[in-house]
């Protein structure tokens, strides 16, 4: 008895999986497929289930409850309404996407414009800044070479740097104030050289400044050389009286010629 019940249960257990596999039900519901086609993109229309007429009277119960008289009014409204698939070629979602693409295009245009402005600004920056002075072609070709002597000239030159032969001549020039004004010029030239290399200004203005400095340097050299010539003039070198009158030193006239010269100097402005 017991064994048989066990056998029956075992049989049942054997049958069970077989039975379940066999229980797959294949459905084909074209009306719901049509509804899904309507819901997204594929096709509007195909209003299943279709009505059936028998002697002019609609007899399909399914049709009546879904689209017919017994259906809720919103169903009929949906059926009679316009095509509202969101992803149809001119659907709402597609339109949105198109608008978005137009916006993106606009953003791209703005980006291009801004980029152009930025490039121009970068050029302006390079035009203004003092970072690029070393690679300026005109500087490399001409001004670097021409302004090198100015740059190498000592800040506080000795008399030999100024081309003066002896310390005495130098002292004479210091007393007249010639050296002071010369050094004033030299220092402002050196300063403007330094400024032109380190300040931010347009490139054209920078080149003008180089040029001004170069012209000033040439004038300085001329002045320096003329000073050397002046100090070598026999009048300055050998005439004690002129030297003394220049610096208000007590006069000790030695001969008649000096006395006459001194008198002439004294009354120069009176007649």
């Amino acid at each position, binding site marked *: 008895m017991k064994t048989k019940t066990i056998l029956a249960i075992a049989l049942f257990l054997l*049958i069970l999986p077989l039975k379940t596999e066999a229980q797959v039900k294949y459905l*084909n519901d*074209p009306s719901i*497929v049509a509804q*899904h086609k309507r819901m*997204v993109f594929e096709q509007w229309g195909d209003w299943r289930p279709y009505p059936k007429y028998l002697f002019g009277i609609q007899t399909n119960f399914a049709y009546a409850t879904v689209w017919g008289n017994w259906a809720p009014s919103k169903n009929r409204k949906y059926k009679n309404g316009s095509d509202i698939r969101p992803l149809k070629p001119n659907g709402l979602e597609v339109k949105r996407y198109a608008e978005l693409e137009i916006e993106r295009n606009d953003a791209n245009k703005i980006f291009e414009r801004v980029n152009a402005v930025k490039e121009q600004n970068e050029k302006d920056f390079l035009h*203004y*800044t003092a970072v690029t002075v070393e690679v300026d072609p005109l500087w490399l070709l001409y001004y670097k070479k021409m302004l090198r002597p100015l740059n190498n000239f000592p800040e506080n030159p000795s008399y030999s740097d100024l081309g003066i032969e002896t310390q005495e001549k130098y002292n004479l020039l210091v007393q007249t104030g010639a050296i002071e004004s010369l050094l004033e010029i030299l220092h402002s030239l050196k300063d403007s050289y330094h400024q032109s290399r380190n300040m931010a200004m347009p490139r054209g*203005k920078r080149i003008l400044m180089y040029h001004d400095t170069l012209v000033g340097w040439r004038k300085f050299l001329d002045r320096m050389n003329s000073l050397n010539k002046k100090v070598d003039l026999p009048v300055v070198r050998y005439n004690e009286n002129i030297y003394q009158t220049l610096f208000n030193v007590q006069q000790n006239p030695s001969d008649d010629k000096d006395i006459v010269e001194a008198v002439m100097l004294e009354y120069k402005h009176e007649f």
Partner: protein
Amino acid sequence: MRKIILLIAILLLPLLTKAQTIVFNKKLMEQLTKNQAVRLTSNNSLLNSYKKQRELYDKINNRLTEIAVIQEYIYSQLTNINSLIKDGKKAMLFGKYVGIVTQNLGKLTEMTVENPHFATLRYEYYIKILDKFIALKDHFENEVMHEKHNYLVDQYDRQLLVGEALYKIKEINSFINYLIFLLEYANQTSIYHQIPILGNYIILDKSIVNDIMYNLKHRF
């Protein structure tokens, strides 16, 4: 008993298997997957477009900040006085000459108080010096050391302006020195030379007479 158990088992079978039934709608599944794929692609394309726009706007923002920085740099260079000019040799020389000029002015006032009768003859120099002082003050206040947002000067021009101010103050100094010199030697110079228009006439007459004498000597 055996039969009953079998019967029960057979009766129970459909009940048990009913819970395991699978309904499979192949066409609906196909339609659903198609719909889902279309939805996903549409959604992704929207998201992509938004993402690209966001990237573009971020880039635009970066560019704009860069532009603002560059503009600010150039603008500050055009409105502020560079420290190189402020501490430059020319500005220092200008300060030095201001000191010298004030010293000389003191000396000049002393001389003027001492020799008022000679000073009145040289009144046009005083007026010139005063005019130049006013011009220099205006130049210095309104052009050289002017730091305002609506006054744009680049550094080269500013350096030129400082040079001009230096030149002007040197000129004033030389005028004052000349005036001091004139007053100092006023006692020793003849009075006719010091009267403004008359002095010129004397010099002219002198040169005319000189010319006549020369012609007499060498032509006849």
